[in-house]
C-alpha cells in the first residue's frame, strides 16, 4: 500500500519537474518565425501609408508596455493620461511605463521579465547591465528590426537611423538570433566618452597655475606638491576615481564590463589606433601607473578612502561639493561645467586627457529593443519612432506636463518644478533623442552637445563586443582576483613592488592569458566579417 503511494508520488513529482523545466525553457526562442505572422498580419493594412499621419490611425487601441531603468517615478498617472490623449489621433496607443530605478534589483527584474516572456513590448537594453544588448539579441529576446523579410524599420521608422550619429547606427548592428542586423533603437545622447581632468581653477590660479600647466598624469607631481603644502595635511589635491584615472593616464578604454581587458587607443586620433586587445593588468603601462600613483599616495595627494570601493564614491562627491580638490577625474558630459561650477562655487574647467572616443560600450550606452514576446511590435516601433521625432511627445514623457512639472522660462528654456520632479523624474537619456527637449535653465545649449558628438571619434573596434561565454569559468575566477587586488593597487594604497607581482601571478594562474587569447580571436573573427 505504502510503496504504491510512493510510486504514484514519484511519478507525479517527475511530471511536475518536467513541466517546470519545460516552462523554464520557454524563454524567447531564437527564431524570427514566431514574430513574423503577427507582424505581417497586423502590418498589412498600414504598410503602404506613411506612419504618423492622421489619415491612417489604427482603429483598435493597443497598450504598449515599456520597461526602463534609472528613473525615479512614483506617480505618472497624469502624464500617461495626457500622452494617451495626445496619441489618440496619431497612432492610437495607450502607454504603460514600468519605471525601474538604478538599483541592481531593477535590472535583475528586467532580465527576469525578459526571460519569462512577459507581455511587455519594449525593454531598455545597453552594454552595461545584465540584459546586455548583444547577448539578448543572440538569445532572440528582441525583434530584428531590419529583417530583410519584414523590414520594420523601413516601414515604420523611415530615416530614423540616417538621422542619428553614423557611429550609433554602426554600433547597433550585432550578430543576433535572426542574423546580423539591428535589434534595438539607440538613444541619441552623448555618443562618445571623453576622460577629462576636473580642474578647480580657482584654487590652481591661487598657486599660480594655468590650464596649460596641467598636461600629463605623470607630471602632476610638482603641482600637487605645491597645493598640498599650501592647503595643509588634511587636504587631498588629487580627487580621483582610481580605475578611471588609470585609463586616463594610459589612454585605454574598457573592452569588457569587468574591466579585465583594455584597448589602448591613440590619444590624438582614436580612429587610428591599433586594433588589438591587451590584458589590462599585465601591461608595462599598468606597472608604470601603479608606481607613480604609489608615489602620489605616499606624498598624501590621494584620499585613502579612494582605495575602498565602498567609501570611494561618497568621499569623492564630498570633496567635489566642498571644492576640496585641485585635480579630479571626470567622464565628461557636454556642458557639465555649466552645472558643476555654480554648484561648487568655483571655476571648474574640464581639460580633456585625450580625444573623445566612441567605443562599443559608449555607443550602446542606451537602447530600446522590442521584445519578441510583444504582440504589437509594429505599433511599438511606430511609438518609438514618434518619440524620437516628435519633440512635443518626448518633452511630455521626459519632463511631464507644462504648468505641473515644469514652467516655460523662455522659448527654449524651462524650469522644472522640484516638487513634481520628486514624484516624476525619468532618466531622459534612457528614453529617446535628448536634443529634442527644451533646455533646462542654466544648462548648456544643445550646440555644445552636438559639437561634442561631432568631435568624438570611433575606435577601430567600435561594434565589437566580447562574448565571455567560451571562457566563463576563467572569467568569473579572474573577476574575483581583480576584486582582491585592483582597488588598492590603482589607488596607490599598497606597494606595487610586492603586490603587483602577486596580482599578476594570480591572474596568470587563473587563466588571464586564455581569456586574452579568446578575446583577440573573437576580435579577428569580427574584423574578418566587416
Amino acid at each position, binding site marked *: 500500500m505504502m510503496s504504491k503511494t510512493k510510486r504514484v508520488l514519484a511519478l507525479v513529482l517527475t511530471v511536475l519537474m518536467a513541466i517546470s523545466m519545460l516552462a523554464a525553457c520557454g524563454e524567447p526562442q531564437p527564431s524570427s518565425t514566431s514574430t513574423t505572422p503577427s507582424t505581417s498580419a497586423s502590418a498589412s493594412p498600414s504598410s503602404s501609408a506613411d506612419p504618423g499621419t492622421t489619415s491612417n490611425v489604427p482603429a483598435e487601441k493597443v497598450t504598449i508596455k515599456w520597461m526602463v531603468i534609472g528613473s525615479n517615478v512614483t506617480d505618472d498617472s497624469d502624464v500617461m493620461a495626457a500622452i494617451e490623449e495626445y496619441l489618440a489621433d496619431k497612432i492610437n496607443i495607450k502607454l504603460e511605463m514600468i519605471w525601474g530605478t*538604478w538599483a541592481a*534589483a531593477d535590472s*535583475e527584474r528586467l532580465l527576469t521579465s525578459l526571460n519569462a516572456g512577459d507581455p511587455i513590448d519594449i525593454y531598455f537594453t545597453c552594454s552595461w547591465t545584465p540584459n546586455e544588448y548583444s547577448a539578448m539579441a543572440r538569445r532572440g529576446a528582441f525583434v530584428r528590426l531590419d529583417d530583410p523579410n519584414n523590414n520594420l524599420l523601413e516601414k515604420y521608422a523611415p530615416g530614423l537611423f540616417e538621422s542619428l550619429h553614423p557611429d550609433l547606427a554602426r554600433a547597433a548592428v550585432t550578430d543576433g538570433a535572426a542574423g546580423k542586423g539591428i535589434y534595438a533603437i539607440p538613444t541619441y545622447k552623448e555618443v562618445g566618452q571623453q576622460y577629462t581632468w576636473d580642474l578647480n581653477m580657482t584654487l590652481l590660479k591661487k598657486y599660480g597655475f594655468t590650464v596649460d600647466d596641467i598636461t600629463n598624469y605623470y607630471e602632476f607631481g610638482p603641482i600637487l606638491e605645491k597645493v598640498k603644502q599650501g592647503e595643509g595635511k588634511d587636504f587631498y589635491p588629487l580627487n580621483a576615481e582610481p580605475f578611471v584615472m588609470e*585609463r586616463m593616464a594610459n589612454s585605454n578604454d574598457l573592452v569588457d*564590463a569587468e574591466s579585465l581587458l583594455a584597448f589602448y587607443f591613440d590619444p590624438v586620433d582614436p580612429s587610428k589606433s591599433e586594433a588589438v586587445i591587451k590584458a589590462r593588468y599585465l601591461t608595462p603601462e599598468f606597472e608604470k601607473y601603479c608606481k607613480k600613483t604609489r608615489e602620489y599616495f605616499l606624498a598624501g595627494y590621494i584620499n585613502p578612502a579612494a582605495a575602498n570601493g565602498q567609501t570611494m564614491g*561618497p568621499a569623492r562627491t564630498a570633496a567635489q561639493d566642498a571644492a576640496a580638490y585641485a585635480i579630479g577625474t571626470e567622464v565628461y558630459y557636454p556642458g557639465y561645467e555649466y552645472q558643476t561650477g555654480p554648484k561648487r562655487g568655483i571655476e571648474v574647467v574640464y581639460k580633456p586627457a585625450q580625444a573623445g572616443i566612441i567605443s562599443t560600450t559608449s555607443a550602446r550606452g542606451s537602447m530600446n529593443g522590442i521584445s519578441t514576446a510583444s504582440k504589437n511590435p509594429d505599433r511599438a516601433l511606430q511609438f518609438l519612432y514618434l518619440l524620437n521625432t516628435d519633440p512635443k511627445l518626448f518633452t511630455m514623457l521626459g519632463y511631464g506636463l507644462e504648468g505641473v512639472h515644469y514652467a516655460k522660462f523662455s522659448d527654449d528654456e524651462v524650469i522644472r518644478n522640484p516638487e513634481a520632479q520628486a514624484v516624476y523624474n525619468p532618466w531622459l537619456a534612457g528614453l529617446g533623442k535628448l536634443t529634442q527637449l527644451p533646455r533646462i535653465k542654466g544648462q548648456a545649449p544643445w550646440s555644445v552637445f552636438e559639437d561634442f558628438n561631432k568631435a568624438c571619434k570611433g575606435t577601430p573596434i567600435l561594434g565589437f563586443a566580447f562574448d565571455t561565454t567560451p571562457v566563463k569559468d576563467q572569467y568569473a575566477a579572474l573577476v574575483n582576483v581583480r576584486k582582491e587586488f585592483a582597488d588598492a593597487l590603482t589607488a596607490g594604497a599598497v606597494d606595487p613592488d610586492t603586490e603587483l607581482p602577486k596580482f599578476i601571478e594570480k591572474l596568470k594562474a587563473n587563466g588571464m592569458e586564455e581569456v586574452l587569447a579568446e578575446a583577440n580571436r573573437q576580435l579577428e573573427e569580427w574584423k574578418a566579417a566587416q
Partner: protein
Amino acid sequence: MYRNTMAIKKKSARLGAVSVPAEILFHIIIGGFGLMCFIPFIFTIIISFTSEKSIAVNGFSFFPEEWSLNAYKYLFERARQVAFSTVSSVISTSVGTVFSVLICVLYSYAMFRKDYKLRQFITFFSFFTMMFGGGLTATYMVSKNLLGLYNNYWALIVPLLVNPFNFIIMRTFYQSSVPDALIESAFIDGSGEYRTLFQIVLPISLPGIATIALFNMIAYWNEWFIGMLYIDKSKLMPLQLLLVKMQQEAEFVAQNSGKIGSISAHMGPVPTESLRMALVVIIVIPIAFAYPFFQRYIISGLTIGAVKG
C-alpha cells in the same frame, strides 16, 4: 532593615540560585552580549542624525561633530512614498502572518497525527520543496501568469504562505507537548476532529504558534525580493524594497560612473548614508515593538518544555 533581610533571605532561598559572584559574572556576560546586539542599532540611530559633511570628513562616529535632521526631512518630503510603503508592508505582514500561521498549524497537525494515512506523503511533499526549487524563471511565470500574482497584495502574501521549515518545527512542537493519550481521550469523550484541534491541541500549543508567528512576521516584514519581482506599482512597494533600492542606487553610482559615460550628469540626488540609516530606523521600530508581545509565549514555551522533560 527588616525588609532588606527578608529580601536577601528570599533571594538565597530561590530555587537553583547561584552564588552572588557567579551571578554578577553571568550578568556581566549576558549584559555584554545584550549590548553587542543593541549598540549597532544605537549607532544606526546616531548616523541617521549625523550631517553628511561629518560623515564625509570624519566617517561614522558615536559623537558626530555636527548633527542634522536632513535625512528625516528628506524622508518627510517623500512622505507619500514612505506612507504607501508602510501601509503595504503592514497589510502584507499582518494578513500574511495570520494566513501562514493558520496553514502551518493545519498542515503540521496533519503531519503530526500518527493515525493519518497520508502522513508520510505530505511530510515528504513539503520536505521536497526544501531540497528542490523550480528556479527563478519558472517560479516567476507560474506565479505571475498562472496565479495572477502581479501588482496586488496577494503577490506579496502568497509566495511566503507555505514554509516547510516552520511545518517541521511545529510538528516537533506538537510531538513534544501534545501526548497521544490526550487526543485519544478527547475522542472517547466524543470530540470531533475540529474540536480536538481547536479546543484541545491549540490551547496547549500557543508557545509554538507564537514562535511560528514571530518567524513569519519577520519573514514578511523583511521580504523585498518578492516585491521586486511582482510589484511594479509604487503604491504597493514594501518598505524593505524601498530601502534596498536606495542602498543599491548609491552603490550603482560608485561602481558605474566612468563605465557608461556621464551617467551622473543625468541623475537626481543619490540617497545618502544618513538617509539610508533613517529608513532603517523607520523599518526597525514597528517590528521591535512586536517582540515583547511574542516573547511572553516563547518564554512560557521554554518552561513548559522543561517541566515535561
